[in-house]
């Protein structure tokens, strides 16, 4: 048994090409300045994203939710299974509302007014009767983000119609007044009368459109007979005007979403090194955007529910 002969080392090749001794171009500024600049750009991009999400993308999100809820409510109304009284699960569709003069056309009203629920559409305040029933029914809607379904509600005028469809029928209300802080609450209802109060937020001054800071209440009186009031759920303190949701669940979801985002970014960065940049971008951008969307949706629950 003979071992193969070791390979001979190659003869050393002497490079005689001229050497590039020119100094490499250095960054004009120090590392920290570059890092600061990068950070600020990223912050700026995050801001742009946040605003784009709140003003534009969240509207798509609500539209998508409405599409699903509409299909669900349509079925339930047809079968007569839509709720007429408590208990109703949070986020379940309860009614269809139209306020033509405020640009609200056949929006599905969901149960509850927590920030998360109001991301899906106008919400019915727990603790009030359902629309169409005797008593005061309260609906809340966002004024700015998630499509701002109620953004034009404060501009309603006395006499404007509001139409609500529940499992008990279609009810027509007429706006009887708009009130803000300090205005007298309308007189007590007589037996068998119904009132619908639409609650949203509106701003003041020059940046009114950008800063809905105060609650606005629009009262509408039921024309025709009210249905007897059904059972009423307990008042939910998490659903009061301008309530925000910084509860454990929201924070936990937010942390998880952030982890997904960080993981997605890391994977894309890794991919950019391993694949071609183009491939990394093509595969990575949708993943990062989806993760970003998840984060934004969870983070927006920290904002007041009427904004």
């Amino acid at each position, binding site marked *: 048994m003979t071992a193969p002969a070791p390979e001979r080392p190659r003869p050393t090749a002497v490079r005689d090409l001229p050497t590039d001794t020119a100094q490499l171009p250095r960054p004009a500024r120090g590392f920290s300045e570059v890092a600061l600049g990068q950070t600020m*750009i990223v912050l700026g991009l995050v801001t742009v994203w946040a605003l784009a999400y709140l003003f534009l993308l969240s509207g798509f999100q609500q539209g998508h939710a409405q599409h699903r809820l509409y299909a669900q409510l349509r079925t339930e109304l047809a079968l007569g299974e839509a709720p007429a009284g408590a208990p109703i699960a949070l986020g379940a569709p309860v009614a269809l509302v139209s306020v033509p003069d405020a640009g609200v056309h056949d929006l599905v009203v969901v149960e509850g007014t927590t920030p998360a629920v109001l991301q899906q559409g106008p919400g019915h305040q727990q603790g009030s009767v359902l629309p169409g029933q005797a008593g005061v029914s309260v609906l809340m809607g966002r004024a700015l983000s998630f499509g701002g379904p109620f953004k034009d509600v404060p501009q309603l005028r006395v006499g404007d119609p509001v139409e609500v469809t529940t499992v008990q029928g279609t009810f027509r209300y007429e706006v009887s007044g708009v009130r803000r802080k300090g205005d007298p609450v309308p007189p007590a209802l007589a037996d068998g009368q119904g009132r619908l109060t639409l609650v949203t937020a509106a701003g003041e001054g020059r940046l009114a459109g950008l800063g809905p800071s105060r609650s606005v209440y629009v009262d509408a009186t039921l024309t025709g007979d009210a249905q007897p009031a059904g059972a009423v759920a307990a008042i939910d303190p998490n659903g009061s005007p301008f309530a925000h949701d910084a509860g454990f669940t929201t924070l936990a979801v937010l942390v998880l979403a952030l982890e997904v985002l960080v993981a997605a970014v890391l994977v894309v960065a890794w991919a950019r090194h391993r694949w071609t940049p183009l491939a990394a971008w093509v595969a990575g951008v949708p993943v990062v955007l989806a993760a970003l969307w998840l984060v934004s949706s969870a983070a927006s629950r920290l*904002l007041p529910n009427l904004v």
Partner: protein
Amino acid sequence: MTLRRRLAYAGAGLTAVGLLVAGLLVPLSMAPAESAGTYRVTATRDAIAEDGTSTTLDQRTVSMDVSQTTNLRGRQQVTVSWSGAHPTGGTVADVNSAAGAGEEYPFVLLQCRGTASGDNAVRPETCWTQTWAERFQRSSSAWPVWRADAYADTDARGSAVGAPDPRPELCFGAARSERWLPFDAVDGTTYAGGSAGCAGMAPESANVDGSGLPSNTTYGITGSDGKGSEQFTVFTADENASLGCSSEVPCSLVAVPVMGVSCDGFGTKLPEESRPTAAAGARADTLCRAPDVYQPGQIATTGTDSNLAVSGSLWWAPSNWRNRITVPLTFAVSSSVCSVLNSDAPLTAYGSVLFSDISAQWTPKFCTDDRLRPFVHVQAADTAARNLITAGTASMVLSSRAPDGGFGKPVVQAPVAFTGFAVAYNVDDSTGRPAKTLNLDARLLAKLLTQSYPANSLVGDNYPALARNPMNITKDPEFIALNPGLPQYDAVEAASTIMTLSTETDMTAALTSYIDADPEARKWLDGVPDPWGMVVNPNYLRIDLPVSSWPQLDEFVLPQSIIDAKVNPCYSYSPSPYLGLIANPTGFVQNVVQNIQYSMSNVNIACPNGDSSDVTTLRLRTQGRQQPGNRFVLGVVPLTAAYRYSLRTASLQTTSDVSASDKVADAAGRTFVAADDAGLKAAGALLKPDEESGTWDLDYAQLHETAGAAAYPGALPVYADVPTTGLDKATAKRAAQLLEYAATSGQQAGTGNGQLPPGALPLTEANGLSALAAYTHRAAAAVLDQKGEVPKLVPDDPDPTPSPTGEPTDDPTTTSPVGPGTTTPLTPPATGGSPSAGKPGKGATPKPAETDVIRTVGAESSFGGIGLPVVLLAGLVVGVAGLSLRFTGRAVQLGRTAGPALARRVRSGGRRVRR
């Protein structure tokens, strides 16, 4: 004087005149709402003969007084007294029971939804009764009394009126004549009722004659002089959702003085075709005019039916109903309004049960007035609450004493109310009617608390230490001497004890301080028998007082032979100290109040349906409601609660010049002070500032001297304890605002929201308590500052009220610091005329006074206002700054090195990455 200065003075003068006029207008416009009126009606009973001629059988002018009709709160009792009514016969002991409907000529009091007149007027259908029998009649005869009613419509005189269609299966076949009176609930549901409620009753209906809370429908008893008086309990939607009365839903107290059905037996008022035959008509007429079964004042006997034509069962008959007196009731906005209106978290004040009725009136004011920030009062044991301050977990605590070891940090104890405890009772005299007065001395209270009465023969025969003591307080010669004419009971365990709180409360500390300072009581507790030989329970001998919660020291368990005999299977199943079961202190003051209001014995030895073979039935229960006529319950309650629920309160002894060894036969030589404003005012004069503890203390020793003879021994201030260091600015501001309110507007007596309820004495100059209010005023400033300063109770400055300094300004909203009793910064100046007139909206239902007008509170969010613009701006700034930082420098350099360098750099970068 310059023109400017002159204008300023003119402005100030005008403002002063305006305030004066407004100040005069306010009481004028409030007066009719506050005073409860006298109501009068002429009630008649007619009879129509066969030929159609009408004669008046009886005519009376009835007048009625109601003690309170505005600002009512749940389960509150109002006193209704009347005169001129027909004397009642066939009386029953419990006028709130369905049996009361059988009385002849009762004075029926009902709570009905609706107003006195108009579209929303009261109808029998909207009146609450608890049982079906009060709204259903059936008869096998063709023309029963209610069909002979001269004032009923033709429809209402049919053979079956108001029957549900279709007839529910549960209901038996229709009788020959039936009259259904359905109940219309506030939500629009109609409950037809019927025999045994077969066609449905409101959920609040139940036959509760034995247990639970009784109905408020009252079959009042009119004496032979035409006068009568009853306590009427009002229900809000919280107690009775079907009736649904609230500040929004108007309700009325309806009094129907039953005169009897006006007879039209021959049906002369009916159309020809509906009339009875001549013979049937004659029978109906005789039935309607039938003589009364009972004499006025006679007690109903079982098995004897009263004359239906004049009984309370037909309170709804148009003949009776048309004689009604309708008194509109208005309800105070309850504190539940706060959860609807407010989104900001309230300031939490823990502690004193004495403050609960005051906070019930203050919290709705604080959350509906947008100048005030809401607060919520969480009842808690006083000692534990004070520990929260020391631990730093509470920012405000309400209590009545300084902690024994101090707070360990600077804390102001600002007086917010001067109220106290009351010994409330529900005791019947020998005629079976509620006793009007009750006198107690400290020794009797000590006897009750120390479980020194044997209560029943099980104890009396087997507990040698107590064997010679009277069975209960009604058998005690001392009690008999002070309260002559009360019935004596052999085996009413509730008469051997007094209901107290089991939790630690300053109320118990005050009660035991009073006992401790009383020479007679202290001597008896130390082992000296009373003049009749009664001795203290040895377990409580020489007990150290005062205590914050009364200890349960007696350990006597019934002998084994009795346990084995299973006389009381529940007790035999789990034997425990027997006298402790009789005392059975409760954890909630509301339970004591309710037990007194409805005379429910809290003695925990009842064993209904106890079956030794089934342990699930072997739970000891409280004895529950006592039979009216034989009621005897005592309890320690806050004074404000006694006033709110119209509980009768005992007068407590202050001085006595009777020798301790005298076997007295009457109350001569002893002074008893009632729990009223005069007694509180006299007690207020005994308050002494104690700089060391930081509180004003009642000098109990002085109660037994001439100086304190008129002082009510139960008086007790309530302090708000607030730290003056370590609170954040927002909390400090809220606490200071509450103190400022307590020092000024909060001391206005009244039943409206924001006012001081009866049972608490306003801290004003007139009551000699201005020093307390002035201190609260100074404390508010110290709380606001948060500099760790605790003002002295009595300021070194001889003039405690800072006098207004500086010149008058032309700004009417600026008010100088004020003492109590004058216009206050927090009272809204009544500009623009009558406060109740400013209510827009057509068809508005009559609204209660100014304090109850609800205004939109609204919610605000500063983030909503400026958040997004700020984010947008910040984003722009950061983005631009980042871009410039990152690229401007490089762009310059790139510009310099230009094309090839850039190309090379990009290529080399790309290679580097790939490598």
